[in-house]
């Protein structure tokens, strides 16, 4: 028994040392693949359970919400066309050199929790050119989050709604305005460091700022639901409604760092 334990420990120590000193990444990927592939199915089942539970507990609200969503989609399509037009104008100018425009398609394999944060696991990694800091968005231009770690064939994204996420943001169409959007415990988004004199109203569209590293400006983050200001404070805060529900994300785009 003791001899077996010692042998097991030695094998284990060997595996861990080999992982760091020898090119064993290929072998690790082979072992990882079945875990992640079955994990994708488990994750989808979890999402289904959550959707089912949400349907039961919020059924009556959903009808009203879908009507609101239809109006918002129409509004968004208008804003998106404007934003893309304005982005193209910036690309043509000298600022275009700083914007990482090359992007690759990826798929969300699974969702999980790491250190109290929701993370999305995707099927692309460093061998596809993805490194920590790359931005992720949907093909409709909705910002999802940033890559926090990447291995050869998988990477993980920290979504904007996670408590550890902080993104430089602006109001669509206002180049002067700058603030920071943080995750609100996975429930929504909070915009902080809004200057006192900034005039914001509910419904304003918040997008990524040019100040956010490795991220194209103009990606949609959310709409302002309410603005809060306490007398005597230097900054205002705002509560945002994200454009994205993490439950249904599958196909995404990753902007490669130049």
């Amino acid at each position, binding site marked *: 028994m003791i001899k077996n334990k010692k042998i097991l420990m030695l094998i284990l120590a060997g595996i861990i040392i080999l992982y760091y000193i020898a090119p064993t990444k290929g072998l690790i990927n082979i072992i990882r693949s079945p875990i992640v592939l079955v994990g994708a199915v488990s994750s989808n089942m979890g999402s289904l359970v959550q959707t089912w539970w949400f349907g039961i507990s919020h059924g009556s609200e959903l009808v009203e919400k879908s009507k609101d969503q239809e109006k918002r989609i129409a509004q968004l399509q208008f804003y998106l066309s404007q934003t893309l037009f304005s982005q193209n104008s910036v690309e043509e100018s000298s600022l275009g050199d700083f914007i990482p425009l090359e992007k690759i398609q990826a798929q969300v394999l699974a969702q999980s929790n790491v250190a109290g944060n929701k993370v999305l696991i995707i099927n692309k990694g460093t061998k596809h050119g993805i490194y*920590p800091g790359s931005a992720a968005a949907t093909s409709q231009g909705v910002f999802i989050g940033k890559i926090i770690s990447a291995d050869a064939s998988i990477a993980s994204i920290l979504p904007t709604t996670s408590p550890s996420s902080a993104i430089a943001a602006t109001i669509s169409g206002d180049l002067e305005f700058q603030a920071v959007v943080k995750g609100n*415990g996975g429930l929504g988004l909070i915009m902080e460091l809004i200057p006192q004199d900034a005039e914001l109203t509910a419904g304003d569209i918040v997008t990524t700022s040019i100040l956010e590293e490795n991220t194209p400006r103009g990606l949609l983050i959310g709409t302002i639901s309410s603005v809060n200001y306490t007398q005597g404070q230097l900054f205002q805060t705002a509560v945002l409604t994200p454009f994205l529900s993490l439950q249904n994300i599958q196909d995404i785009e990753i902007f490669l760092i130049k």
Partner: protein
Amino acid sequence: MKLLLLIGVFAAIQLDYFFIGSIAQQLHLYTGFLLIALLTIHKRHSQAILAAVLYGLMLDLIIIEVPFGVLTIAHILVFMIINSQANIALSVSRNLYIAVIFFSLLAYSAAIELIIFYSSNFLSASNFIFDSYAFFESIIISSLISTLFVVGMGIMASIFKSNLRKWFFVR
């Protein structure tokens, strides 16, 4: 038996990390820990240590924010701690047994969450923010749910056992 153990650990990873992970942000289920603990308490030491190593290795493979090896070593330590304290679980009454499970889950979840947080922040490039309120809320709720899970499984197992003859016409 070893294949069964591998399947058990694989299922525990799927349930703990992927299934529950996609349902809620701060909710965890610790079936992997429960498997290691039950095997250790019932004196199946070689299977328990193998389960600890496999569970730790699988977590190391999928939680890429944490440097490889950290969670495997952590789970071997978990096995060693349970092994040294296994007599407590065996000497208590049935009601206290549930309390022992709950408090061990609480200790395990606090330790493992802190290990993941500190190793991903200081040994890796991640920048997670520590929210003490969310941390305590998460470990208490997760430990409670994991305890309810094991109690539920226990009840189901006893119902199944007592009705086995009736359902399957076993004489």
